[in-house]
């Protein structure tokens, strides 16, 4: 049997538990720290969301003043995007990608540690404005000139510096991932035998590498405008505030795919395993992923239809076009389920939640791609609903699918299924209660980012429903927290491959040793572990094929 044997290295020396975690360059420990750090920020930003929903439940200002409300949604958006969704998926990628490639670690373990440690520093800096007279309050998009001449105070400067640090972390990470994926694959693993999750991470990291430096440059330019008399975006000095929007969205739209593609990768790992079928149309899926990545750089100005200064037909056309590869993926997922053998485990439920909720975000996205409709819906709650169906119904569902799916690999214990399913159903119901009414609010004309609205507007009932939904989501986190704690204390030990996985991370122990693999199975397809498990039952593998060969003989 063709196996590749790696020589295990002895642990060099023993360190205290704390020192070990603070100084580790092991991709698995760093991955876990990424995930833990991201959930810390998820809770902070989630509390801000509850604060906002409480304020908006009924007309009038009950809990906050305008300024505090504006800080809350600015911090909520910034933290959720830059310190939760992106890093938590990077954390899973950190843990899983080297394992799925059959590699002992990332290509640059120390850079890996650096890109992690920049995150909590940058994140705390972004929020530290609260200690210095008020956090940034210009929205996560930080439109100029509101964010320059009209927002004095250190909050916005801290926000800028923090984002520059977080962006730098992303860029370093992306270089590391690309090098790892191209140079560290196990013998036999060609590009088209890579697990689909690795493919989505590869495209994501390429997007980060191309898009994030643009944002970082823009942030630095804005910092110069604010502090050193620059006039990049300052209209009174001849600068153009629209330039900021171009820079921001040239990054910001690829960012949407940076956030959604790895989650799509997770779903494309989970659906085949729990349907006991290969992913339908693996190659088409890869091309669709690459296609989305390419197109994502040509649609940025659809965030700027109402500025009156962009060429609408081009950006409308490209935006409509991006629905095609996305649709292909949707059909591939459904075809994977079709005629499968489906088990509704918790990770599977979250993956199915992803495809059914992301669908709604996709449809509302096509509606927004038509400029005349966008003229009505832009900057209303419809957009808030749309982006939450993509980020929450999509990415965050994917994050939880990944958590329940890979938790046994990381800790050797499976999260409790009953608590997990309670979490899923509460979250699904709360999510739809919170965000579906926002479509209607937006269509009726409620602008986003308002601290208050008129009692005569007729928006009160929908806002109350939305607030109830937001608190239902918060309650759904309780079974998750209980589940994690209970599993660490007394979780079910489930061995190395509890789900009958397809990819190489299931070919090593749970948790894997520091060097990842003692031996690797031969890699002859994108499902080496599946091939290994079923090498003796060829007739089960391909009954049709066997029947054909018997008939012909």
């Amino acid at each position: 049997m063709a196996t590749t044997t790696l020589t295990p290295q002895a642990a060099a020396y023993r360190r205290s538990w704390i020192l070990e975690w603070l100084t580790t360059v092991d991709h698995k420990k760093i991955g876990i720290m990424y995930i833990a750090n991201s959930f810390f920020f998820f809770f902070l930003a989630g509390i801000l969301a509850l604060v906002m929903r409480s304020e908006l439940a009924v007309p009038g200002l009950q809990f906050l003043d305008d300024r505090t409300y504006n800080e809350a949604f600015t911090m909520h958006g910034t933290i959720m995007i830059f310190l939760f969704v992106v890093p938590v998926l990077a954390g899973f990628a950190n843990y899983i990608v080297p394992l799925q490639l059959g590699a002992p670690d990332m290509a640059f373990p120390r850079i890996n540690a650096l890109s992690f440690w920049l995150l909590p520093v940058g994140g705390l800096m972004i929020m530290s404005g609260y200690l210095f007279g008020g956090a940034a309050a210009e929205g996560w998009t930080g439109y100029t000139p509101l964010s320059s001449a009209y927002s004095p105070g250190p909050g916005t400067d801290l926000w800028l510096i923090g984002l520059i640090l977080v962006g730098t972390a992303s860029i370093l990470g992306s270089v590391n991932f690309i090098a790892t994926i191209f140079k560290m694959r196990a013998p036999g693993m060609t590009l088209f035998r890579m697990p689909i999750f690795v493919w989505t991470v590869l495209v994501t990291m390429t997007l980060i590498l191309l898009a994030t430096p643009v944002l970082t440059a823009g942030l630095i330019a804005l910092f110069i405008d604010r502090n050193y008399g620059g006039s990049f975006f300052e209209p009174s000095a001849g600068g153009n505030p629209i330039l900021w929007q171009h820079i921001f969205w040239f990054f910001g739209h690829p960012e949407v795919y940076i956030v959604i593609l790895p989650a799509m990768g997770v779903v494309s790992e989970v659906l085949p395993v729990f349907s006991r079928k290969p992913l339908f149309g693996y190659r088409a899926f890869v091309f669709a992923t690459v296609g989305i990545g390419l197109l994502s750089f040509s649609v940025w100005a659809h965030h700027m239809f109402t500025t009156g200064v962009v060429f609408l037909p081009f950006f409308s056309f490209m935006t409509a076009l991006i629905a095609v590869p996305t649709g292909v993926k949707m059909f591939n997922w459904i075809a994977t389920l079709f005629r499968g053998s489906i088990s509704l485990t918790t990770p599977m439920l979250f993956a199915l939640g992803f495809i059914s909720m992301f669908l709604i975000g996709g449809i509302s996205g096509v509606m927004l791609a038509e400029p005349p409709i966008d003229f009505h819906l832009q900057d209303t709650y419809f957009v808030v609903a749309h982006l939450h169906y993509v980020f929450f119904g999509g990415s965050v569902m994917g994050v939880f699918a990944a958590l329940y799916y890979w938790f046994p690999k990381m800790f050797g214990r499976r999260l409790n299924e009953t608590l997990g399913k309670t979490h899923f159903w509460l979250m699904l119901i709360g999510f739809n209660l919170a965000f579906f009414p926002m479509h209607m609010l937006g269509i009726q004309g409620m602008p986003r980012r308002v601290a208050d609205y008129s009692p005569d507007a007729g928006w009160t009932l929908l806002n109350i429903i939305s607030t109830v939904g937001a608190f239902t989501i918060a309650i759904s986190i309780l079974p998750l927290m209980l589940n994690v704690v209970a599993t660490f204390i007394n979780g079910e030990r489930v061995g190395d491959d509890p789900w009958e996985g397809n990819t190489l991370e299931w070919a090593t122990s749970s948790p894997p040793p520091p060097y990842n693999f003692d031996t690797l199975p031969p890699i002859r397809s994108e499902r080496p572990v599946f091939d290994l498990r079923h090498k003796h039952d060829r007739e089960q593998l391909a009954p049709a094929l066997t029947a054909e060969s018997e008939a012909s003989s």
Partner: protein
Amino acid sequence: MRRLAARPRLRTIIRTAGPLLVMLLLGGCLFPPTPETTQAKDVFTLYVVVFIMGAVVFFGVEGAIVYSIIRYRRRDDRLPDQLHGHTLVEILWTAIPTVIVMFLFVWSTLTLTTIDAKSDPAVTVEVTGFQWQWTFHYLDGDNDPKNDYSVTGTPANPPVMGLPIGEPIRLILKSSDVIHSFFVPHFLVKRDVIPFPNGINPNELEFTISDPGTYGGQCAEFCGELHSKMTFTIQAMAPADYQKWLADVKAGKTPPPSGTPPPGAAVINLTAQNVAFDTSNIQVPAGKPFVIHFDNKDAIAHNVGIYQGGKEVFTGQIVTGPTTVDYQVPALPAGSYTFQCDVHPSQMTGTLVAK
């Protein structure tokens, strides 16, 4: 030309199907407000088309997902057929969405051309957005701004824009500080109000209102602290009523009192510059009328309002600088008051003592 001939028929179908769907789906909450301009009616039609296609896709795909989950639940350990793909099916489901989105693109681009068409406007209003309200300045075409009607709102007292129905209206959208957005839900349109550098023309928005009525609007681009208070109202009326309305508001507009203050009255000088008053303490004689000589050096709107315990005592007219105005303030009983600019109450405030 054939397209034009075919459209009314399609519209009839949509008009019949539209209300049915409205009744079916959540009391119409998923449809925009009644469109009140000719442009908005086109957008509404497009919206209904896109919405119906979206609904078909939604029910089709969710149906397929739910069907697969129920029909193909795991019943035994037998491995299902390991199907890796099917080229023909994959080509089909790439082609069909392509055709659908191209169809939507063409329709929306045609609608865009219609609603963006320029015409010779009957009324042109220069709309200036500022933190945090609007100024509506009616341009009557005689190049003499003195005769023009202009109204500036405050967060507590938003402005009204009277407009005639059935005639093309043009709004010229200017900002004196940050980016705002002029949004009227019943017109199904918004356009950003951007402080462009010199050399770039301001955005314009054209529409023709079809029905008389009162339509609320507000700023849609986040613009800072009191963004949610940037509301306004559009009062649409028959052209004859509009002319009467315009004459009335022009006549009712008290010109800024100037020239001779009443003999013996104290004159207090107050200057506004860079969104700040030059003083935060004013002393006036109690029990006697006095004059505030207000010099607004900013190119944006300011005024002086006097309050005691949160109650309004005096509100001066809002003026956009650079200009000066003399406010005739009635006699105040002895005591301590606050004064502020009603447009910028958080930045421009101070104490006024009468004794």
